[in-house]
C-alpha cells in the first residue's frame, strides 16, 4: 500500500499573540496518491488556514500549536524556511484565488515559470524556457512561443489563472493545494479551469486539496469531501455518498441551503429547525 501523500495528525492552529484563541482544533486527515479531496466550509471555518499551514505559508500572526503534517513522508511542522523551500514546488504546490497576487507584475510569465523550475532543477535556462513554453501550451495558453514573454497584466483573468497553474505544476509536485482557485472567475471560465485541472491532475497523478465554500463545485471535481466548521472536520465521505446521504446536520444544512436548478422557487430555502451554528457566535 502506498504511503499517503499527505498525513495530518491532531493539528492545532491558533493566534500567536493569544493562546486562548484556537482556529483549528485537532484536525486529522489523509490524502492518498491521486486522490482529490474537497475541503468545504464557510468563512471562519479554518479551511484556508489549514491549507496555508500545510505549505508552511500561514500568516505571521498565526502559528501551528501542535500536531504533525507529513507531505510525502516529510514533516512540515516546525521546520525552517530553507527546508520548506525545498518542499515547495517540488513536493507540494499551491494555486490561489487571485492570480495577480502570486504573479509578479514586473516580470514576464516565462521568466517566472523558469525561475520556479530552476529553483529545484539545476538545468540550463534554455531548457527551462522550453519546458515553460510546453507548460503554457498544456494549460491552454494560446500561442505559447510568443506569449511566454508577456506580462501578467496582458492576460485575461482566466488566462492568468492558467499561467499560475502552469507555474504551480512546473516542478511536478505530488500534492496540489487549490484555495478557491475559481471564485473570482466567470462561470464559463470557471468551468473551463475545472476541466483543465481535471485533465492535468489525471495526467500527472497529482493529489489535490480543493478548498472552497461552494459544495457543488467541490462535488463536481473531488472524489471525497471533508466538511469543515469552526476549526473541525465534521464529516468526511466520498462525494456521491455525502451528497446523497449526509450524516452531519451541518452538511445537511449546507446541502439544503444551496440553490440548484431543481430547487422549488415557491418554498423557503432552509429548514428553520436545523441548528446551523454561525460565525462568531452571532446569527447571520
Amino acid at each position: 500500500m502506498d504511503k499517503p501523500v499527505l498525513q495530518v495528525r491532531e493539528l492545532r492552529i491558533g493566534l500567536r499573540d493569544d493562546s486562548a484563541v484556537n482556529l483549528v482544533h485537532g484536525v486529522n486527515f489523509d490524502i492518498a496518491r491521486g486522490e482529490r479531496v474537497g475541503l468545504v466550509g464557510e468563512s471562519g471555518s479554518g479551511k484556508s488556514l489549514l491549507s496555508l499551514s500545510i505549505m508552511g505559508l500561514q500568516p505571521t500572526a498565526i502559528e501551528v500549536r501542535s500536531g504533525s503534517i507529513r507531505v510525502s513522508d516529510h514533516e512540515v511542522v516546525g521546520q525552517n524556511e530553507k527546508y520548506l523551500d525545498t518542499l515547495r514546488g517540488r513536493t507540494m504546490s499551491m494555486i490561489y484565488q487571485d492570480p495577480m497576487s502570486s504573479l509578479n507584475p514586473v516580470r514576464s510569465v516565462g521568466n517566472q515559470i523558469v525561475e520556479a523550475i530552476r529553483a529545484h532543477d539545476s538545468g540550463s535556462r534554455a531548457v527551462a524556457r522550453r519546458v515553460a513554453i510546453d507548460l503554457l501550451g498544456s494549460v491552454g495558453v494560446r500561442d505559447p512561443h510568443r506569449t511566454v514573454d508577456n506580462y501578467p497584466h496582458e492576460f485575461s483573468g482566466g488566462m492568468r489563472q492558467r499561467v499560475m497553474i502552469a507555474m504551480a505544476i512546473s516542478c511536478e509536485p505530488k500534492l496540489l493545494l487549490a484555495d478557491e482557485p475559481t471564485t473570482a472567475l466567470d462561470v464559463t471560465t470557471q468551468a473551463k479551469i475545472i476541466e483543465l485541472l481535471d485533465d492535468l491532475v489525471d495526467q500527472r497523478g497529482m493529489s489535490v486539496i480543493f478548498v472552497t465554500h461552494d459544495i457543488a463545485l467541490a462535488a463536481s471535481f473531488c472524489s471525497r469531501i471533508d466538511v469543515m466548521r469552526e476549526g473541525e472536520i465534521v464529516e468526511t465521505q466520498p462525494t456521491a455518498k455525502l451528497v446523497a446521504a449526509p450524516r452531519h446536520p451541518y452538511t445537511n444544512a449546507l446541502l439544503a441551503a444551496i440553490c440548484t436548478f431543481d430547487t422549488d422557487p415557491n418554498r423557503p430555502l432552509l429548514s428553520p429547525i436545523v441548528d446551523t451554528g454561525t460565525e462568531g457566535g452571532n446569527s447571520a
Partner: protein
Amino acid sequence: MTTLKVGSTRSLLRAVYDQPSVIVSLATIFFIALISAFSPLLFPNPDEIDASNRLLPPSPEHWFGTDELGRELVARMAHAGQLTLVIALGAMALSIILGVLWGMLAGSHGWIEEVLMRTADAIMAVPMILFALVFVAAFGSSPEVLIVILGILKAPLVARVTRASTMVELASDYARGLAVIGLSKGRILFAEILPNVFPVIVAVATLNIASAIMIEAALSFIGLGVQPPLASWGTLLKIGYSLIYQAWWYALIPAIAITIVIAAFNDVGKWLERYLDRRVA
C-alpha cells in the same frame, strides 16, 4: 478567508511593542508641555535681573546657568518653551483646518482639483525662508503672524494627504450607497467621509508640529521670527550663539531642547502613521 477580530487594545500594545521609543517620546513631550504650561507658576519671575550673576555656568543653584542679564536660564527656557509650543500647535491647527478643506474640495470636485493642487505645489516649491521673509516684511513677525506663515507653509502637505484619502473613500462602496440615499455632496464629505480621512491626518499633523518648531527656531535664529522682549527657544539659541565663547551652555541648552522635542514629535508621528496604517489595512 478567515477574518481575525483582533481587539483594538491588543493591536495598540503590539504597535507599541514594535516601536517602544514612542513611550519615551510621549513622556518627553508630556513633560515638556507640562513644564511650559505651568511656567508662570514654576518660574514666576523669568525676567528678574541680577547683574552680579551674569553668565554663570550651570550649577546646583542655577540649573541652566544665567544669561547676560543675570536671569535664570531655566526660567527663560520654560517660558520660551511655552511660546515655541503655542506657535507650533497654532500652526499645526491652522494647517489642518486649511489643508483638510483644501484637500477635500480637491478630492471631490474634478474641476477645482487642478487649480487647488497646483497652488499647493507652488507653495511647496517656494523655499521656506524666502516665503517667511516676504510675509514678515509685509506683516511683521508677531507670534500671530508666525502662526499664519507656518500654517500656510504646512497646509499643502495636509491637503495632498487629505485629497488622496478623500478620493479613496469616495470610490468605496459605502460612498455609492450614500449617493443613492440622496445625501448632498457636502454632507457626504464632511459628515461621512471626514471621520475616515481623519486618522491619516493625525499622523501628518504630529509631524507638522515637529517641522513647525524647527522652522520657527530657524526663523528666530536669523532674526525673522519672535522678537524681543518675547522669547522662544529659537531666539534664545540666537543670543546664545552670539555668546558662544563666553557661555557655551547658553546655545547648547536651547539646541538640545529643540532637537529633543522635534525628535519626540517625529517619533510619535511616525508611530501614528504605522499604527493607523495597520488598522486600516
